[in-house]
């Protein structure tokens, strides 16, 4: 694959934001499927390339991999801060489609993320199911409400999501977003939970709720297999 580092000006976030993009080698003429890879808290556009071998795993899938940097925003339109959900679901997709030869069908777009990025992936797909066919959460923080009690270093949930009561009723609460999904098209949601920890309980609860509400969800709990599931999903797109 060829690696592209991009510095651009986000109109939705009203700030310059960096991106890393991997494009398939010349054997793949496109139009390409697109995989958006979202970083965890305290991460950025470089995290996926530095901490995983994602290029090696996905090189033969013929997909363009887009790795944005969304700070510690949880990929939402922050209560006090940046409009990162607009950036993710509208601007970033439009930018990439202006530059590259991308397959513009929703089933050819997948959004995946780790930790905070797992939450962001599911949030983006529930907000814009007409854009993203599939969301994959790898050990996602699926209920950020927990962080009102368990304080996070350097991130105030009140700034990101608003007061706790407001957050609980807002679509940034994935249960609210999933139940309220009014579109005819519904995204496929893959929840991968590789560790038996508190986040596993959230994944199980969200999976159960989504299944009940008619959203095609699946829950994977094999230890250490997260990236294998992701790679398989991208291959099958």
């Amino acid at each position, binding site marked *: 694959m*060829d690696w592209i*580092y*991009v510095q*651009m*000006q986000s*109109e939705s976030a009203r700030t310059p934001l960096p991106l890393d993009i991997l*494009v398939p080698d010349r054997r793949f003429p496109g139009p390409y499927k697109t995989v958006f890879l979202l970083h965890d808290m305290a991460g950025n556009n470089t995290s996926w390339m530095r901490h995983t071998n994602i290029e090696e795993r996905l090189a033969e899938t013929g997909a363009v991999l887009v790795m944005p940097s969304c700070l510690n925003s949880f990929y939402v339109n922050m209560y006090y801060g940046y409009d990162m959900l607009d950036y993710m679901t509208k601007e970033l997709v*439009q930018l990439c489609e202006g*530059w590259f030869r991308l397959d513009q069908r929703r089933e050819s777009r997948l959004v995946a993320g780790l930790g905070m990025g797992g939450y962001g992936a599911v949030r983006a797909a529930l907000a814009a199911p007409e854009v993203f066919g599939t969301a994959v959460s790898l050990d996602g923080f699926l209920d950020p409400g927990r962080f009102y009690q368990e304080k996070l270093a350097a991130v105030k949930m009140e700034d990101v999501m608003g007061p706790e009561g407001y957050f609980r009723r807002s679509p940034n609460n994935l249960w609210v977003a999933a139940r309220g999904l009014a579109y005819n098209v519904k995204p496929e949601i893959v929840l991968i939970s590789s560790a038996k920890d508190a986040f596993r309980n959230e994944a199980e609860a969200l999976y159960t709720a989504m299944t009940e509400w008619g959203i095609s969800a699946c829950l994977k709990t094999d230890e250490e297999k997260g990236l294998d599931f992701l790679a398989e999903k991208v291959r099958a797109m």
Partner: protein
Amino acid sequence: MAFMEINLYSEVLNLEIPVSVILPQQPSRPLKTVWLYHGSTGDHTLWARYTNLERYVRERGMAAIIPTGHKSLFTNMVHGQDYGTFLGEELVARMRQIFPCLSRAREDNYVGGLSNGAYGAFRVGLRYPETFCAIGAFSGGDTADQYFTDDGTYRGRRHVLVFGEGCPAESEHGVKYLARKLTKQGGPYPRIYHAAGELEPSGRGDGLTGFFKELPFEYRFEVFPGVGHEWKLWDQAVFRYIDDFLGIKAETTKYYV
């Protein structure tokens, strides 16, 4: 504008090559593209670092592509690799494959360079006249029209790596050779903008100044007063090349995006 750094695998060179790309964020039409080469000690970062290039292309809604040519002088090295083929063929094809927003039309593609990159712009532009409609050569000329020998100096050895021993003027390395060959073929003729600083030796004109006037090329030689072999000149020259010689005028003064 989006400022990109691409690490591109070249099959011709069997190397990962870094390339800077400046692109509008929302290209609304096939993009006119200026392909710029660095000097002998430079790389793909310098045009953006030392000139106002990004502003010039942003105002015009066009693209700039700046590859690294290492120490190749942008030609096919005798003792080395085929950088000329990489720049004139593979890079152009691959950039257009990755970015379909780039115009493939000859009249929208312009090559340029400074110092040894000016020789490179002549060499690539004259070798691939069906790809590029214009050559902007700033502070450089027919580098191949000299006798080279490995005399133990760094300069001698470096040139022998590129050109071999002897004088390569009458080969595919030679600017005048390629220009005469193209004339025999009857074109297509790239338009040529040749610039130099008053305070550098080529500011008094060089072997090419008279040469091109005898051939059916549109050729303009311009000397910038008070400047030598330096970025102060090349920043002015690249602006003059785009704005005046190519006639691509600013469409916006918006200072962001």
